[in-house]
């Protein structure tokens, strides 16, 4: 019983929120891209580019906010490559995504070696040069909420806010309606006078923006340096969450919390229960597999997903 309460308690939920943050951002990013009809398996690579850029820029300019903005810019730039290849040149979207992932496994160590004479990681940032902990004024007074939502990095609040924002954008605005139409039936959108290309660019770029920020959270929020492959598959888990959440912002959010919770528990269990730590660490990944295997047939993706839009054959 004591073991159990030491694992499952309020601070576990708080750490679940923290761990879920990069997943939520990447997942919502993927949602914009895929709702517009472009498969984005490059989330992993985009996050890596964001994580590295954030740490490197902060190390150079000693200001995490500049690092954060640079990470968003890096995410945009990488996703722009994705967009040009898959929309303009109609390349196979899965291949483009895979190529980006492989590329950004290698690029950060290379640049890190050139900039900081160390390929393994970027320099350790002093604590005051990572993103600050924020407290929300009123919530500080409410007991449970205080423990859950106080003292997080700004990106955590940003991620939480992005869930309703994405819902609103997708289902209430002109942009969202058009994006969904383009992802379901691009010809119909085209004949209604909507530029399929432009909508798809917007979707993919938004995914880069959000996943880039999600990556920054890892290197200048949760940690204070970039290490090789520090995303460790989070981009793919975010993608899984997107599918598990049926390409719906709230669904994806809940799925991210689920996967984040699994990881939070597995971290707690290390050292508390007598199971080799490697086994505990694989829990989130195994869960992802199990959930997806049981679920994948039942989620209907946007109908035009993965298909480049070609008018005249």
């Amino acid at each position, binding site marked *: 019983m004591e073991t159990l309460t030491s694992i499952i308690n309020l601070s576990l939920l708080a750490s679940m929120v923290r761990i879920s943050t990069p997943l939520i951002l990447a997942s919502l990013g993927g949602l914009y891209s895929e709702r517009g009809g472009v498969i984005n398996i490059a989330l992993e690579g985009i996050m890596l580019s964001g994580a590295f850029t954030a740490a490197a820029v902060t190390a150079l300019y000693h200001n995490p906010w500049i690092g954060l903005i640079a990470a968003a810019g890096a995410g945009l730039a990488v996703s722009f490559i994705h967009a040009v290849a898959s929309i303009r040149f109609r390349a196979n979207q899965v291949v483009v995504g895979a190529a980006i992932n492989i590329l950004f496994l290698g690029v950060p160590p290379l640049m890190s070696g050139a900039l900081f004479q160390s390929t393994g990681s970027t320099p350790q940032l002093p604590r005051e040069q990572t993103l600050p902990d924020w407290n929300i004024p009123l919530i500080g007074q409410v007991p449970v909420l205080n423990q859950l939502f106080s003292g997080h990095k700004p990106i955590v609040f940003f991620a939480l806010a992005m869930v309703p924002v994405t819902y*609103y954008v997708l289902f*209430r*605005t*002109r942009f969202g*309606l*058009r994006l*969904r*139409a383009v992802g*379901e*039936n691009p*010809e*119909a*959108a*085209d*004949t*209604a*006078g*909507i530029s399929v290309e432009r909508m798809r660019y917007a979707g993919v770029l938004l995914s880069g923006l959000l996943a880039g920020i999600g990556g920054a959270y890892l290197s200048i929020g949760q940690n204070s340096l970039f290490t090789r492959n520090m995303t460790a598959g989070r981009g793919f888990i975010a993608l899984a969450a997107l599918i598990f959440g049926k390409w719906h912002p709230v669904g994806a959010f809940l799925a991210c919390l689920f996967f984040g919770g699994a990881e939070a528990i597995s971290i707690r269990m290390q050292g508390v229960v007598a199971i080799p730590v490697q086994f505990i660490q694989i829990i989130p990944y195994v869960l992802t597999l199990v959930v997806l295997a049981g679920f994948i047939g039942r989620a209907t993706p946007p*109908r035009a997903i993965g298909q480049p839009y070609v*008018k*005249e*054959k």
Partner: protein
Amino acid sequence: MTDGPKYAIEMRGVTKRFGALVANDRVNLAVAPGSIHAIIGENGAGKSTAMNILYGFYKADQGQILIDGEVRSIEGPSDAIKLGLGMVHQHFMLVDTLTVTENIILGAEPLSGMAIDFAKARARVLDLSNQYGLQVDPDARVGRLSVGQQQRVEILKTLYRGARILILDEPTAVLTPQEVAELFSILRGLREQGKTIIIITHKLAEVLALSGNITVMRDGKVIGGLATKDATASELARMMVGREVLLRVEKREAEPRSPTLSVQCVSLKNPDGGVALYDVSFTVREGEILAIAGVEGNGQTELIEVLAGLRRPDSGEVRLDGRNITPLGPHERKSLGVAHIPEDRRRRGLLLDFDLAENSILGLHSDRPVSGAFLLNKQFITARAERLVKDYDVRPPDIKLAARGFSGGNQQKLIIGREFDSKPKLILAAQPTRGVDIGAIEFIHRKIIELRDAGAAVVVVSAELEEVLSLGDRVIVMFGGRIVGEVDPKTVTEEELGLMMTGG
């Protein structure tokens, strides 16, 4: 209409190529304002291409377009919409997962602040649907509507965007006779309210009933134009095809013998749980053609799939010459003498990027003599392909040309050659003449009747009433996955059949 421009729409010398193919060759067209103008022509004549150019969906290589007497450059659909054009495409341009209202406002959404003003949009949709008599539930998901209702949504879409000139591309192809009548009264109503309407079709009776003027197209060119009051069906058919055509099939009385195919109590569920087929039973005998009539989507596709071995029924039996073949797959059935002419020839009948010779062995690729122990027998394949091309009049007779490069009619002749060459005892022909020109239709019908006379049993599924009635020795009607009755093709009227097809 006294001092307005003479024509609402004019196309002058419009040419459009797709690769080497000239889909529109110096097309001229003039449509008077406030009229219903029909464009007729066989499939592949270039009608849709011409309209898509007007609508800015394709860009012309040459030529001019005049709207209300002024030369306009239409770069995309949004330009066309601004000029007052609206188009209902042959394949509906709707997003199934969105609601009726969302589909209608797509591209011109009313806003309040940052959000779409859904209340206003919905009210406007209701207004329009009352004004023009186009009843449809504004909140329904489009994917759940019937084809007729979806078409109303398409028309509403154009009206919502303020269209004064409506283009309808083969709007009747997917409708039941009753729905066609409703559509026509809607179109007449729209004309009364001052709209100009262009309607594409290849059904001559409809043209004569509805339009004021007719333009005939063939092989990408405009062959001629005339006022409907001066036109007759046989003259229009001759203009469309370029020679005299027999509009009716000529065949002897059937001499059916013992049963070849017997279907007993076959039921099938769709993956989503809906009923695709329910308790379907019938027999087809040697030397007879059974035609299955029905509005598309009432189980015909699934029935043919079950008969061809592409899907297993949930219950019931399929017997060929008394033998239960229910568990057999398509290849085994093929070797027992079942030929299948699939409904969607581009997806199921051909590999579009493979050449004619390669396509001519699909399904036979692992059998001798097409294949040896390890390698394909190229000599045999070439010789056989050459022979098929000759026997089945496939044009151009180039066995190295990719299937994509043939017209619909010639693609179909290739499939029919491939399937009929082995003298099958059962023929499953789904929409055998869809998208096929009248000349090739004649040929395909003749081949089917030849095989029937040689003793084959034939099942024909067709959405064309004329085809069902002229080809079928017996006719059964499907509705909602069931067989709702059998009629005598010699005595039944199209109205009676239409009523049965809609469950009446």
